């Protein structure tokens, strides 16, 4: 019961980057348990990039194919994964805490009759049992749990487990999965504008609040995000989402997304407690605000006090130089 099954994700037949993080986390756990890492991806056919995950520590990569598995098929995927888990001897099954992973993991857990720890940010092995840490109350507290019995089902918060190269064999195996997609059928994915990153997965987030004064002014943030050459997403505070200035998908905070990017730039955001909770686990926080007493400066690593409409364009210019 010391092997780790890492459940990977693909879209349009290509492996999603978050899968590298899952394999990286799985490798760490497998090393602590003294087992191997099997990576599993479900798809309609061969998955581009699946051959790469040996680099991050997968001993074996299994592609389970089914004509109905091109797009996410919640019931078909859950059934196939649960069967795989039952047929093996896994100590841990690790998912990404992505939109798909958070939907899929509970289904697999219920089928296996096992508990699930979602959105895990740290883990360990104590006395042979897996322990996990996960943020609760939107990150205002951390819950440390011991998972008794096996397998331990966990999903890993995106952007936390930075991919680390740990080359292993990564032996490729393909098997056909039987059955249908199930009753719940994903008909299509309506793609967001090309090049837009999701705040939940972006390594850099440029977030705006009421200080932007009006919706059109978010253009200065979009320009700053663009200067990071495809690495940054635009985020928003609850106030501006509730006011209808920005879409819900961008909201950071307790009733939005809790994020952990490498760099979080808070612009014109005073720092309500529910917002701070959602972004305080960012690696580096920069705050730009005209009010030097704004609570956001209490959590920021670096602050600039000033008019954002002067500071942000200057920052965009400087970042462009860095990336130029």
């Amino acid at each position, binding site marked *: 019961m010391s092997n780790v099954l890492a459940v990977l994700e693909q879209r349009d037949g290509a492996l999603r980057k978050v899968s590298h993080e899952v394999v990286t986390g799985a490798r760490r756990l497998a090393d602590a348990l003294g087992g191997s890492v099997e990576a599993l991806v479900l798809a309609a056919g061969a998955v581009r990039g699946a051959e790469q995950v040996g680099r991050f520590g997968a001993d074996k990569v299994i592609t389970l194919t089914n004509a109905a598995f091109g797009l996410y098929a919640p019931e078909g995927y859950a059934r196939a994964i649960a069967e795989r888990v039952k047929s093996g001897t896994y100590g841990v099954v690790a998912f990404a805490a992505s939109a798909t992973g958070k939907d899929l993991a*509970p289904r697999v857990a219920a089928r296996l009759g096992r508990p699930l720890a979602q959105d895990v940010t740290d883990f360990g092995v104590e006395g042979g049992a897996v322990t996990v840490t996960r943020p609760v109350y939107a990150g205002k507290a*951390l819950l440390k749990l011991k998972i008794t019995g096996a397998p331990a089902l966990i999903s890993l918060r995106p952007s936390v487990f930075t991919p680390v190269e740990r080359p292993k064999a990564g032996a490729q195996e393909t098997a056909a999965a039987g059955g249908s997609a199930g009753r719940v059928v994903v008909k299509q994915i309506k793609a967001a504008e090309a090049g837009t990153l999701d705040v939940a997965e972006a390594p850099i987030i440029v977030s705006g609040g009421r200080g932007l004064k009006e919706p059109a002014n978010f253009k200065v943030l979009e320009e700053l995000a663009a200067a990071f050459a495809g690495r940054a997403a635009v985020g928003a505070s609850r106030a501006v989402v509730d006011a209808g200035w920005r879409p*819900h998908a961008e909201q950071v905070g307790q009733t939005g997304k809790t994020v952990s990017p490498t760099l979080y730039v808070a612009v014109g955001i005073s720092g309500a407690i529910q917002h701070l909770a959602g972004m305080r686990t960012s*690696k580096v926080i920069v705050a730009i605000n005209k009010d030097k007493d704004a609570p956001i400066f209490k959590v920021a690593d670096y602050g600039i006090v000033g008019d954002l409409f002067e500071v942000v364009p200057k920052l965009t210019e*400087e*970042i462009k130089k*860095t990336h130029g």
Partner: protein
Amino acid sequence: MKIAVCIKRVPDSETRVKIASDGKSLDEAGVKFILNPYDEFAVEEALRRKEKAGSGEVVVIALGPAAAQETIRTALAMGADRGILLQSDRIPLDGLEVAQALAAEFKGAGFDLILFGKMAIDDYNHQVGPMVAELLDLPCVTTVAHLEIDGGKGVAEREIEGGVEVVEFPLPAVLTTDKGLNEPRYPALKGIMAAKKKPLEVKTVSLGGGGLELLALTPPPERKEGKIVGEGAAAVPELVRLLREEAKVL
């Protein structure tokens, strides 16, 4: 349409979290409890579906302590018809335990829709809805931000990274709701008065321990004191230098 909505009593999102002396729980002194914000979208959606159908019933169900009756009354004041409290002093950490108790309640009850908020803002478990669906062998779509139902079929949209998934499903089904699905109504005075007279059934449930053991609840690590780099646009070059050379994030 017969619709069940599962709701939870949670601390207000503005709560300053203080850890109790046992080091394992929230100090509830002075904490204001509310209806979980994501559940408001579920209650609202149920009411709209019933109104559109012209007939039916909306039943709200909570698992929690006696005080959760108040939370149920809030949903009744919004317009739900009756409430059920599965009373338990302790809400298990293990979402599967909660799902099993709810599934037992729903078995054979003949609901067309069972709605949940996508997650509770206290434990962030993000799992009970789809677990209940699996236990009852019902189709399920999570984090629904747009919904159309026509007869026995539904089409839901859910946000994923970089896009929106369009999902078809048959009824009866379990759905979990996301922000954006609707704009929840505030209970009117008339609704609040009416809610006092609506049926609320209390059933005591005994829950298993589950497979999760709580080791500790701790405050997040303090962020080290930051610095004000300077004022205005003139401070930007120094900020960029610090991000590159000190923080090494550029």
